[in-house]
């Protein structure tokens, strides 16, 4: 046991066998397996989201009614999902610049790597900034706030087509105050109908008034929507932030010439894998939260 040592073994010495099976370095292989594992973490969250949504399909908020804002555009102009589409586009473009950085690395083109990697970092920052703006819009809420019906209200309704009907509004239904003091039903079966007169007053005096959204309130409908929104986009955002930091560190090393001296830019490739993964996950988050 005397000669037993524990310093790391030089990787040239480590691999003494035949041909490396996939001709892939262990670092890259590890990154791949890590990403598979991380994909299952997101899988767990998205599965949970699906579970909740399936259970509360009737009162699940309509995304287009929440995310219609655009920076510097007045609130009464509705541009549903346009901003998040732009964010998504920027993130995808940053994946393209990452590919170009990796490609430049293969050619040992230090200038190229620097340029494309820097652009990737910028793309990441823009995405994070946009995410922050998106969150603040959601937290801030609509212009007026809503009444949240908890128990069933039997109410006189004016439907979208102008017909009158009496209906029982279940829990999780939200109603927005209109300019004429009537209440507009925002979700559920009677979406778009209004409640007027005495019935509207009754709701206002008994139902809970909610404005904006957080982990414990959500004016747009079911609470779990807000919980999952903050949780999943937050978890993804943390991944993006880590990716940006990783890329930034690597960028500094590129500029210092560390990888040039090493003779390969594999580090850029590894962080590239991570970055593509983060983008791919966003595509899923975008699809499941905003599109379907």
């Amino acid at each position, binding site marked *: *046991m005397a*000669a*037993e040592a524990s310093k790391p073994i*030089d990787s040239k*010495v480590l691999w003494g066998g*035949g041909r490396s099976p996939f001709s892939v370095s262990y670092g890259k*292989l*590890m990154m791949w397996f890590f990403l598979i*594992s*991380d994909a299952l973490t997101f899988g767990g969250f998205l599965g949970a989201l699906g579970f909740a949504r399936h259970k509360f399909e009737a009162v699940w908020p309509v995304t287009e009614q929440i995310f219609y804002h655009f920076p510097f555009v007045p609130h009464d102009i509705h541009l549903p999902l346009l901003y998040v589409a732009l964010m998504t586009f920027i993130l995808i473009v940053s994946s393209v610049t990452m590919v170009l950085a990796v490609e430049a690395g293969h050619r040992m083109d230090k200038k190229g790597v620097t340029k494309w990697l820097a652009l990737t970092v910028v793309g990441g920052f823009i995405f994070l900034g946009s995410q922050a703006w998106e969150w603040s819009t959601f937290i801030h809420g609509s212009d007026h706030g809503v009444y949240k019906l908890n128990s069933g209200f039997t109410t006189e309704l004016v439907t979208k087509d102008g017909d009158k009907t009496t209906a029982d509004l279940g829990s999780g239904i939200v109603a927005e105050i209109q300019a004429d003091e009537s209440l507009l039903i925002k979700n559920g079966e009677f979406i778009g109908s209004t409640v007027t007169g005495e019935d509207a007053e009754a709701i206002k005096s008994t139902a809970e008034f909610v404005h904006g959204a957080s982990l414990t309130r959500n004016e747009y409908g079911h609470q779990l929507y807000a919980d999952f929104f903050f949780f999943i986009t937050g978890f993804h955002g943390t991944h993006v932030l880590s990716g940006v930091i990783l890329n930034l560190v690597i960028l500094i090393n590129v500029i210092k010439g560390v990888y040039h001296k090493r003779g390969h830019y594999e580090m850029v490739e590894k962080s590239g894998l991570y970055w593509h993964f983060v983008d791919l996950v966003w595509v899923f988050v975008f699809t499941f939260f905003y599109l379907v």
Partner: protein
Amino acid sequence: MSTQAHAAEHHKESFVSKYIFSHDHKMIAKQFLITGMVMATIGMAMSLLFRLQLAWPGESFSVLNFFLGDKWAPDGVLDPNMYLALGTIHGTIMVFFLLTAGLSGTFANLLIPLQIGARDMASGFMNMLSYWGFFISSVIMVISLFVESGPASAGWTVYPPLSALPQAMPGSGLGMTLWLVSMVFFIASQLIGGLNYIVTVINLRTKGMKMTRLPLTIWAILVTAILGLLSFPVLFSAALLLLFDRSFGTAFYLSDIYIAGEALTQTGGSPILYQHLFWFLGHPEVYIILLPALGLTSEVISTNARKPIFGYRAMVGSILAIGFLSFIVWGHHMFVTGMDPFIGAVFTFTTLLIAIPSAVKAFNYITTLWKGNIRFTPAMMFSIGMVSTFISGGLTGIILADSALDINLHDTYFVVAHFHIVMGLSAVLAMFAGVYHWFPKMYGRMMNMKLGYAHFWLTFISGYGVFFPMHFFGLAGVPRRYYTNSEFPMFDVFIDLNILVTVFAIIGGFAQLLFFFNFFYSMVRGPKASQNPWKSNTLEWTTPVEHIHGNWPGKLPEVHRWAYDYSKPGKEDDFVPQTVPLEEGEKDGEH
């Protein structure tokens, strides 16, 4: 630097870098083993304490007062909250700390590089991190035993709402928080370790070590690591959501709860969601425990039966099949959650399918033993014992898999009997087999055989003595996790049997002292081991007895045949190591 020069070079190393922050896989394996043994001792002791209460409900014991103090055992009578806490931490320690990290951590680290012919793990540094993650998580779990409000008490599966509401019961407070924090470190350690194992097996096999020549231990460990990589992240998701419910007022798992007549404001979620996420990990987790145990058993049985393992390909196939199927059966833990009977039937079907590859393995062990020239070493005894418990516990699994039967049996002692026999006993017996078999490789000395036999028989008999009667409790409907059943007159018939169980538990617990003594005594005083004491074929026995950094002094060995050429016709010896080249016209592998 050439390999020779590297190995020959004498490293002057400090105590810290050699024994503590070691990067060497052999040292890390020993660290995992010792830590696992310490944790197991705590877990075992806890079970003895709560077994006292179950055998003699409400009676006073000074040992209870001695270990738990006046707060948790006033006048020597176990406090009900502490009873739940003991059961919870016992389960957590045994499932995660001993049989997941302890078992895989020890044998994956020891055997992967040695059996595939590599100088070390792909990343020694990450390997070290993996151990220290495990260590920190163990320390946090142990600290949680000492907090004012007591450790986590919601059962090892920590179902909400008990786990989600700090005000639910004493153990739901700080104890539960520490449990979750400990698990976060644990999962990180598993992830880092698992990545390393997988990549090492794929990338660092020596020349000639084709996948079809890998010893079954390595196959089992590889598939285990992949299962861990795919299932632990889902536990991580579940735990994060739980943390949010506990601390940030979300309601992922909470709905319609009234505490002292007050409606809880957190509402709208579902505790069933947690169960889905948990068991998506939970079921693969039981195979994360079992597969390495099966792998070790395969190796020990073939070596000591002096026969090639029967059906190598079938064994590999069944490992892969079990790995795959384990992801689509989790619903069998949830038959009574109001699950749609059709979905219940689907889960019954997928669960029963697992019995097929399991049976393939059981029969292959038996056929390997059949007409073998068996050497009953202690390791072999433990392995054969493992085959026995694997079969008897597996059979009750088939009963539980039937959703109609499970509605009666769920959450009774029948389930406790099932999983303790099939998972607890099997994996523990296999782990002992592994330690007895590879002790010469770990410490360069032999363990005492006589003590080994005594240890085996006491452990094996008391293992069955503890868990077999539990089948009858369960069939009669005795619920698990109850502090006492003395309020139910119909269960009075089991009073004597319950005492018998506790007596066996005490015998089995103290029998482990034989092992501890044998282990530590042999470590310093045992007779020196020869290079290949069991006349085994695998590569680890071609390394020098003295551990060296890089494992082989010269070039890495080259592999020419599979690992199971025992008693091959036409050979002088009854074993042919993997490094011996094939002769003209000699066939490799199974025939």
